[in-house]
């Protein structure tokens, strides 16, 4: 039995001459406090037998009731906080503690290896279109391994895809919302069916480790199911105000035809999310995926067709963004653009879309999600067990290539030395290697170009701040590794502090108090994610009120937003304030219409419906 607990029971047992062993925790008070809190919770629990006996003075009979009876009375009580029934459920992660699941993952990788290096044509109007030029997509962990070849569209194919979308869209818009939603749900079930093979593909093409790949596929599934559920709700016209003699109803129309320009860092989730939202809303789209992950995009396109999407509603156009992408963005026949990517490209799209060309039907809507320079504050009283692990995961998960990744860490002076010592040794313990090796946290960055760019930024950093730690990476000339790097004493005016790096590079700055930490945190043009580790209710309240970002996380990692639970997106130079996976997201792809009808005829109104 536990030391210090339930002495009456112990002495009773000893009197019965039974053998009794005490569980005796030893150690310092500081780290032991969690143990104390657990004991206190047990001691003061309402279910506590001894507390009921000695404090509440319950009778012997009440105490010795058969637990079966207690259970019968409480069944469905303590654990059944019933929420209103909703259609949507998040896709849970694969439980890799189960041997069979790990085997499936390995099998999927083996199977995939047999099918690498294929050509992936464009898809226009459900027809596969080959092109004279093909661009190889390479494994970031082995640049000699070609995952597949992506067709390279020219202006002609871009025009053809646009024509197909324009032709298909009116019929699709007239398809009832419920039917459109059903196709999305079908797509979700297909993604579920192919989950492990999609994960394997992400591992090889995007350099995602098993858990990250699984999270990306799960998010894609969530987007489909969530937007489907939301469209079913939006599909029903809504009364704006009840007034006698007049009917006022709002409903939504699709915007028309759009371009979906997606990045490589969540190669399936973001592409699926933006396309699914646009399509379920009754629009037709052209998918323009990243050059780095065209094979995943091609798999998605196959599944869209298999799910029963009519020809032309979704088309796949791979090719150079600078020509084909730019041409489509500027096109007068395009009604909206859904973009997720760099600030540089985002701003260009924003500007181009603002220019109205002859023959253009309306104002272009741009959903623009860009980068971040995300900040986390570690308060003087933070729980370092949690803070160290959370900062490691936020800064180095997927090599820091998430829009939400931690890149500016601000540590209160009180905690600075203790935190940094543990943080750096924790970083030094991370397993680095190819993403397909199970259990590695840090893999290669996406491409040779990215590797060069990040390494250059590290060189810049050396001149601006103090490099306090740099990890080691495998010495493999065929892989695109960047050593994880931590800079300290990073001045707010430096490039290191201001520019998005999109790699495993972290800047640390010391703050003398929480207010200074907040103003440092807010000293950025970006406003995507942010967070703080603190156990001061007042400081937590300050962070909630003042930290400028679209997604604020308290006492946890600042990455890993979950659909519906944490609608994701920022403002400032991080984006236009749209929230992927949020309730309002579909409205970006819709225009509201209000229909008012005078129901009075000569002073006589029909009975209200």
């Amino acid at each position, binding site marked *: 039995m536990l030391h210090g607990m339930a002495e009456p029971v112990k002495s009773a047992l000893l009197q019965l001459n039974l053998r009794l062993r*005490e569980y005796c925790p030893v150690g310092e008070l500081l780290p032991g406090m969690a143990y104390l809190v657990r004991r206190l919770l047990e001691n003061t629990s309402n279910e506590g037998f001894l507390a009921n006996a000695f404090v509440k003075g319950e009778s012997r009979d009440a105490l010795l009731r058969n637990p079966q009876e207690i259970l019968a009375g409480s069944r469905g009580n303590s654990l059944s906080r019933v929420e209103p029934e909703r259609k949507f459920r998040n896709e849970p992660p694969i439980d*890799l503690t189960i041997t069979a699941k790990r085997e499936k993952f390995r099998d999927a990788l083996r199977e995939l290896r047999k099918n690498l290096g294929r050509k992936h044509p464009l898809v226009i109007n459900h027809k596969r279109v080959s092109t004279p030029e093909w661009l190889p997509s390479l494994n970031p962990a082995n640049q000699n391994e070609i995952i597949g070849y992506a067709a390279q569209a020219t202006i002609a194919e871009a025009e053809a895809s646009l024509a197909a979308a324009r032709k298909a869209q009116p019929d699709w818009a007239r398809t009832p919302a419920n039917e459109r939603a059903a196709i999305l749900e079908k797509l979700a079930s297909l993604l579920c069916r192919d989950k492990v093979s999609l994960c394997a593909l992400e591992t090889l093409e995007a350099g995602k480790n098993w858990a990250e790949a699984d999270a990306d596929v799960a998010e894609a599934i969530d987007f489909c199911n969530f937007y489907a559920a939301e469209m079913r709700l939006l599909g029903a016209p809504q009364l704006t105000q009840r007034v006698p003699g007049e009917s006022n109803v709002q409903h939504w129309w699709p915007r028309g035809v759009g371009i979906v320009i997606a990045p490589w860092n969540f190669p399936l989730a973001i592409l699926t999310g933006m396309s699914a939202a646009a399509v379920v809303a009754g629009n037709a789209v052209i998918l323009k995926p990243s050059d780095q992950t065209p094979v995943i995009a091609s798999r998605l396109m196959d599944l869209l067709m298999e799910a029963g999407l009519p020809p032309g509603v979704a088309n796949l156009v791979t090719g150079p963004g600078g020509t084909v992408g730019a041409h489509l963005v500027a096109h007068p026949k395009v009604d909206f653009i859904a973009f997720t990517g760099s600030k540089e490209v985002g701003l260009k799209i924003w500007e181009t879309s603002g220019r109205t060309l002859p023959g253009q039907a309306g104002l272009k809507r741009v959903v623009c999600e860009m980068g971040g320079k995300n900040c986390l504050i570690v308060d003087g009283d933070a729980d370092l067990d949690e803070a160290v692990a959370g900062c490691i995961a936020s800064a180095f998960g997927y090599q820091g290539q998430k829009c939400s990744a931690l890149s500016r860490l601000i540590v209160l002076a009180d905690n600075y030395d203790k935190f940094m010592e543990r943080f750096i040794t924790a970083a030094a313990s991370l397993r680095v290697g190819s993403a397909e090796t199970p259990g590695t946290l840090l893999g290669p960055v996406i491409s040779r170009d990215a590797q060069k760019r990040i390494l250059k930024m590290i060189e810049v950093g050396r001149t601006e701040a103090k490099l306090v730690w740099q990890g080691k990476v495998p010495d493999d000339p065929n892989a695109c590794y960047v050593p994880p790097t931590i800079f300290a004493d990073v001045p707010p005016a430096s490039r290191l502090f201001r520019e998005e790096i999109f790699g495993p590079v972290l800047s640390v700055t010391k703050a003398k108090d929480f207010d200074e930490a907040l103003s440092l945190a807010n000293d950025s043009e970006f406003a995507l994610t942010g967070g703080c580790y603190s156990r001061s*209710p007042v400081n937590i309240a300050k962070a909630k009120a003042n930290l400028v970002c679209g997604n604020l996380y308290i006492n946890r990692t600042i990455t890993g937003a979950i659909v519906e639970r944490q609608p994701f997106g920022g403002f400032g130079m991080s984006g236009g304030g749209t929230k992927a996976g949020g309730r309002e997201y579909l409205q970006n792809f819709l225009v509201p219409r209000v229909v008012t009808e005078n129901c009075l005829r000569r002073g006589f109104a029909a009975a209200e419906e």
Partner: protein
Amino acid sequence: MESAGAPSLFTKKGLQGAMMDWAMRDEHFKTQLFRFVDVLPSLTSSSEISRHFREYLEGEEAGLSSALRTALKAATGAAWLFGPGVSSQVTAMARQFMLGDEAKEIISTLRQLQEAGFGFTVDVLGEATVSEAEADRYAARYLELLSVLARETANWKPCNCNLSARGPVPQLNLSVKISTLYSQIHPADPETAIEAISTRLRPILRKAGELGAFINFDMESFALKDFTSRLFKTLFGETEFASAPACGLALQAYLKNSEEDLNDLIAWARSHKRRVTVRLVKGAYWDYETIAAQQRAGPFRSLARKPKQTRILKNSLCNCSKTATCWMRLSELITSAASRMCWRKPTGSASTIAISNFKCFTGWPNRSNPRCFN
């Protein structure tokens, strides 16, 4: 038992007693108080302690009822306004459950236990292991504890607890948390983790073998359960550790598949002709596991109606009232194991399972199973 008097935590006079009393009456106060206790050790100055005390318990922002605030002020008096006063109160509270860090303190408490007729197992509390350096430090700490305790307890007379029907039981008993011994445990790759932990554990087992000590693997969160069993079987299956040290594993009553795990362990023990002690515990991660499972599975509706939502809830956690369920499972498991071990004629070196220990606190056994304490 009634004659034995109330557990000492409830008989504390003054502030501590009042605090516990209020905590049991007011859930919000309990949360605030325990959160304050949680943060307290990391606060390095009196002014920081006062600030946190105000934020959690005293000021408007703490959100306590005004009656409680007045009572608290009256009870705490000046002591709470100064950091050291608060710290010593909480330290005193912690002393009740922890033996401290100094060898002297530890030994003196263990000695008292021994004299009162209790056996002991020592568990090392500490920070989470976030780096390999920290894992090394834990391994060194386990080794050091073994040496110190062996030296100090060598001449102690065996107490009742260490004499079983099958002969003496090691007096020196160390509980090991395997998550302390490797910082990079990842579900995708148990093999590497087993290798890393084994490397740190072998010297500990070797030393325990030499000293005639007992090594128990504690059970932690569900994610580590199968992993811990696998590590246990791997290590104690090695030739070097085939007969020493004496070993045991904790099983958590609140997990539905503990019975399966127990049978599996019995089969392993038999085939390896190894005596294994099972420490059947209630399980300390109930709240954590339920919350984690709900977070994984998305919007949470009703476990009672939809128990199929996640693996852990479906297969593992008994999904009803925590205390009563745990007691029922405890009694079921004990009777099932007891029927295996007691009513079977011992045959030579055949392995057995001894249910040695209840690490549990609340509730009461099913009356229809009075055997469960025997």
